């Protein structure tokens, strides 16, 4: 039998049973973990007599299910279609024509890595969106399958690129551990801090009943009032606490970055780039240039000092899997960014170029919203009976913060056109730059509220196959001008948006 033919229906690698089993166990644990503490409150006999046998039976049942899943999961390739049959009781047949296939990506979580197999994800786009994953086949087979699935695609690309031969798969850059460290130190730690906060508060709500009577918000407030002098006296403690929080935030950012971007490697292919990264779950993603809708470059003052930025690439994809289509490359140096940009957007003569700024009304609106926010915070604090001094302290702090952030936001907002390309600047402390070509536009919206109408401003929303780009509060005439320019290109361009 030809191993790379795929003309006959075949099953996954038998190791797939392990993957199915672990997925099932994970699902069961995820839905019933709340019950786990109950087991510990019961007597020992009960656990030995009922719980342990129950768990063994459950384990065996899950094993049988995973074997059945494996047996009934078959796939093949037949005249230009990828065909997949699955389902034990409810049969499901999926058939995907090659030209609908967007991407074929590889993924390996920790179990895949241990038993040395690969998960293949087939992403599609079209009126009826389907997403298919083969949980377990060997790496060689995965590569062979990928090659087969993208056969027709490659031929087309070869024809197009005959004049400019590009060497196949050249490594553009690799992220070393030190650079990974730099990336994580310069992350936005406020996010990590909020993550800690969210985890703690969700835990609090889940175990609220246990906590009731021990700790409660009114009690905390009372405790604060009773011990205010002591608390305020211990500035040292406060300092230590904040250092601790910052350290924890950095640590969390670090863990997050390492988990996702460990061993990040970007290679240049014929028609796109290949990105592999991840510690426990390794991902291999192919970004095809023609499927890229727009890119977002994010940096902040610290990152700029280190000369790095992150690039988020937005690809066209089915609505249901939108999150996966936003792929992030971190620690991108300036020269690498230049290479990437020249790869993604073919340089053209920059004949026409103009820059638009949002109307001053935008700044006014930002301040108005901040004002409402501060008002709400003050009302809440008033009713929560905080001391006047504390309230004043928080309010002054917030005013200073919003003053700086709003002015930064207004300064950093711009809309630049360069030939047939749109560059949108945004951001407060961070600087966010979105680059998009006009012809990727799916539809355009001009939105104007009655207040905006009075001020003679309007917002433009550009819909792409991968999300919306918003340009808020432009002068009406400029908004219309921009809209006409982009529309002209979107209507008349013979370039395919996908």
């Amino acid at each position, binding site marked *: 039998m030809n191993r790379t033919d795929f003309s006959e229906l075949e099953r996954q690698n038998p190791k797939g049973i392990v993957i199915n089993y672990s997925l099932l166990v994970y699902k069961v644990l995820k839905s019933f973990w709340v019950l786990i503490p109950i087991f510990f409150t019961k007597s020992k006999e009960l656990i030995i007599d009922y719980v342990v046998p129950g768990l063994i039976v459950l384990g065996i049942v899950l094993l049988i299910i995973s074997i059945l899943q494996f047996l009934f999961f078959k796939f093949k390739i037949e005249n230009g279609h990828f065909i997949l049959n699955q389902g034990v009781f409810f049969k499901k047949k999926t058939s995907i024509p090659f030209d609908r296939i967007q991407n074929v990506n590889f993924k390996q979580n920790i179990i895949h890595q241990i038993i040395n197999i690969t998960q293949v994800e087939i992403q599609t*786009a079209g*009126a009826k969106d389907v997403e298919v994953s083969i949980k377990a086949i060997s790496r060689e087979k995965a590569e062979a399958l990928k090659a087969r699935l993208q056969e027709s695609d490659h031929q087309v690309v070869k024809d197009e690129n005959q004049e400019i031969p590009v060497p196949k798969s050249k490594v553009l850059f690799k992220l070393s551990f030190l650079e990974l460290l730099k990336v994580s130190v310069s992350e936005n730690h406020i996010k990590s801090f909020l993550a800690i906060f969210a985890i703690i508060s969700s835990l609090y709500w889940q175990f609220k009943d246990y906590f009731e009577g021990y700790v409660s918000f009114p009690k905390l407030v009372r405790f604060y009032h009773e011990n205010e002098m002591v608390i305020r006296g211990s500035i040292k403690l406060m300092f230590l606490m904040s250092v601790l929080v910052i350290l924890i935030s950095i640590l969390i950012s670090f863990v997050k970055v390492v988990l996702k971007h460990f061993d990040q490697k970007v290679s240049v292919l014929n028609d796109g780039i290949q990105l592999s990264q991840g510690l426990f779950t390794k991902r291999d993603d192919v970004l095809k240039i023609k499927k890229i809708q727009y890119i977002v470059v994010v940096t902040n003052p610290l990152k700029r000092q280190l000369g790095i930025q992150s690039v988020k690439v937005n690809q*066209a994809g089915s*609505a249901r899997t939108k999150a996966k289509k936003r792929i992030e490359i971190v620690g991108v140096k300036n020269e690498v960014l230049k290479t990437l940009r020249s790869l993604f957007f073919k340089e053209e003569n920059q004949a026409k170029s103009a820059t638009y700024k949002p109307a001053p009304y935008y700044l006014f609106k930002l301040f108005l919203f901040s004002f409402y926010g501060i008002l709400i915070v003050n009302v809440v604090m008033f009713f929560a009976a905080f001391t006047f001094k504390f309230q004043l302290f928080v309010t002054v702090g917030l005013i200073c913060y919003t003053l700086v952030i709003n002015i930064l936001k207004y300064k950093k907002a711009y809309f630049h056109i360069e030939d047939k390309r749109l560059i949108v600047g945004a951001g407060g402390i961070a600087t966010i730059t979105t680059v998009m070509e006009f012809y990727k*536009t*799916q*539809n*355009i*919206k*001009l*939105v*104007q*509220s*009655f207040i905006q*109408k009075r001020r003679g401003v309007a917002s433009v929303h550009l*819909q*792409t*196959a991968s*999300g*919306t780009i918003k340009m808020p509060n432009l002068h009406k005439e400029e908004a*219309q001008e921009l*809209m*006409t320019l982009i*529309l002209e290109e*979107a*209507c*008349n*361009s*013979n370039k395919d*948006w*996908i």
Partner: protein
Amino acid sequence: MFTSTEFNPLEKKYYRLMLIRRALFSLVLIVAFCVFFLTNRDKEVSGVVFLGIGLGVLLIVIGNLLLAKVFFKRKMYSLHDTNLAYKKGWLVSHLTVVPFSRIQHIEIDEGPLERFFNLATLSIYTAGDSGKDLKISGLTKEKSQEIKELITAYIKDE
């Protein structure tokens, strides 16, 4: 481009349809209020509460019916050589323009009420976020069919 003179209004019949829809909604609201009133009459709820809710319901019903005219007048469409534009909205006005070349598929729907008035709803889908595409109600069935055929022909020509 995009000045209001080039825009076509919707069918006048559609205004009647909007009124009927809004009247039906009002009816449901009023019935709900009556049921609420009858089931809670014996309980110790002060008359002020009923009066307040009743006035609120009345306000919504009248406002809803009066605003129909405004919303109807604001809805306009315009067919260009390479794109379709649609305007709507009272407090916040939206102008959506969809290039023909980006249209994935077109649907024409007729509800029971619409069929009575010989009207149809034209839905246009692009690859953008679902729900944010174009939906034009209040065209005659023939007109919507005409637009559909025009766009389909354009896409095929490309």
